């Protein structure tokens, strides 16, 4: 199986110069400038197969955007190799650019005072789409995103969410094979966020497209992504499936128990299985370590008449929080 994306030992530092104001100053700065080095990405490696849904998460300034920019060829890596669809992104070959899309949450690519349709026509010609292909794709996208009625309104009259949709259409009418999305749902209301998530899942299903997205909303990751990359201070600290992540870092399950009127729960006994979060005679909420799940169920079944039992996964937000508090020690101890 050939990999769609191969990143090996990627390093990217920003050398920020003090940009000067004034003509003479800028002329001298052309030749000699004060340097400041910001380490954005240090030694990241991972591989991706076609069709994967990947969530790229980490705190602000962790290096997510920087990594994406290296993957699409906007930034020149300091060292390491990046290969996307067999291309070196920085060469920005036509055939490469036609197969990828980079959706930037806060940037408008659209002509502000013109209807989105005009931008789409420009895209059609730049990507050399046939009229029928263009119409078909555009229709499909407008259906998925419910955008038909906004096509001919000047972009500046659209709401933030509608503009995000317009933006997504710009990037997808040419049916890219890989989709990079940098915080696609930022600033959108809940309904719109859901719409975008559903859309991404659908697009992935229909086109077998690879999707890599960064987000601050764990809901994005939870509902869209199968695989998670966690990055912190420019280093990759987790790479694996969402399921494994929960398995590794969230060793508890939440039990919500209700017993029938004949019985009374034994709090002291319950607390041997895990942390009792709330309790009254008939109900209890307990955080149970995975190892003890079996025992607890056995105990409950043998001793009580169970009216209701609900066993929940902790949500991803909780898991990620745990990752960031525990991962450093684990890395140091080298036992994972």
């Amino acid at each position: 199986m050939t990999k769609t994306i191969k990143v090996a030992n990627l390093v990217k530092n920003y050398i920020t110069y003090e940009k000067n104001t004034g003509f003479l100053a800028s002329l001298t700065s052309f030749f000699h400038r004060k340097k400041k080095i910001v380490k954005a990405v240090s030694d990241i490696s991972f591989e991706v197969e076609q069709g994967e849904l990947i969530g790229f998460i980490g705190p602000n300034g962790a290096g997510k955007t920087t990594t994406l920019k290296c993957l699409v060829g906007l930034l020149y890596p300091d060292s390491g190799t990046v290969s996307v669809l067999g291309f070196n992104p920085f060469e920005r070959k036509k055939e490469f650019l036609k197969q990828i899309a980079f959706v930037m949450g806060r940037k408008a690519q659209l002509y502000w005072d013109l209807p989105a349709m005009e931008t789409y026509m420009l895209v059609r010609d730049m990507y050399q789409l046939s009229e029928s292909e263009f119409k078909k794709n555009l229709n499909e996208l407008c259906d998925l995103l419910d955008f038909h009625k906004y096509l001919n309104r000047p972009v500046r009259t659209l709401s933030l969410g509608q503009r995000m949709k317009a933006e997504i259409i710009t990037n997808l009418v040419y049916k890219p094979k890989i989709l990079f999305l940098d915080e696609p749902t930022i600033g959108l209301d809940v309904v719109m966020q859901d719409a975008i998530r559903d859309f991404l899942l659908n697009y992935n299903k229909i086109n077998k497209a690879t999707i890599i997205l960064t987000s601050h909303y764990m809901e994005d990751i939870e509902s869209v992504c199968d695989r998670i990359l966690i990055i912190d201070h420019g280093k990759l600290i987790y790479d694996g499936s969402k399921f494994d992540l929960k398995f590794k870092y969230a060793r508890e399950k939440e039990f919500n128990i209700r017993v029938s009127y004949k019985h009374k729960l034994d709090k002291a006994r319950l607390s041997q299985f895990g942390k009792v979060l709330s309790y009254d005679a008939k109900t209890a909420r307990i955080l149970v370590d995975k190892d003890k799940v079996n025992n607890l169920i056995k105990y409950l079944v043998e001793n009580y008449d169970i009216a209701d039992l609900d066993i929940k996964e902790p949500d991803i937000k909780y898991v990620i929080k745990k990752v960031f508090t525990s991962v450093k020690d684990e890395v140091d101890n080298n036992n994972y």
Partner: protein
Amino acid sequence: MKLIITITKITFSEYLAYRMNFILWRFRNFLYLFFYYNFWTAVYTYQKQVGNYNKQEIFFYFIMSFVITDIVFSSKLFKLASYINSGVLNQYLLYPVSVFKLMTVEEVVDKTFNTFFSLIEILLFIYLFKIEVFLKIDFYYIAVFILSLFCALVLYYFISLCISLLGFWTNSVWAPRFLTFILINSLSGSFFPLDILPKSVFELINALPFSVLVYLPIQILQGKVSLDFALVKISIAFVWVILFFFLSLFMWKKGLKSYTALGV
């Protein structure tokens, strides 16, 4: 080809969207014309001749300089500097068509528009103020004139490209842009014919490439220079074009590597 048509349409739509700006801009140009007209009229009430120019010749000069300045200097290329600084360049870098191709098409469309309107204004002006126009109607002269105009366009394109690319190294391209604009404008002869200056100053300015931008094309059109001389000047200007071309290429390559894709 389709791309060119689409860009033309979009440029046209943009003009419509900003029609008030456009009308004001054209009106400003018309005021300029009017100002020059009065200025030179005043000058020629006291004397019959300024340098090599009688009244009719000077009127022809400033009218032609108006058109040529409009064609050569109307440029949207400076947008590139703000694209670099604001990160809008990112989107252009991700298009499968080079940013230069896109900007050049846009530039040509834009210039065609400007030329069209500027010609209308001029004809209107000539009609309103009953100005007599003398052209050197000779096939070779017209051909060389067109060549010189082309040379002027290309030269100015690469000069402004280089200034825009400074955006990779400085946030304030506005200052150098303004400075060079004023400088090039005056040195190109778009305000007055350069040869009315003292001979030594004139020769100094003429040694620079800028006189090719406005002064030379008009000289050719008026038949004031020999074709041989014009062709020599044009050839030298093309050497400058090549220099600025390589400079811009160098700046682009060097700039992109240090480009931090700022913005988002």
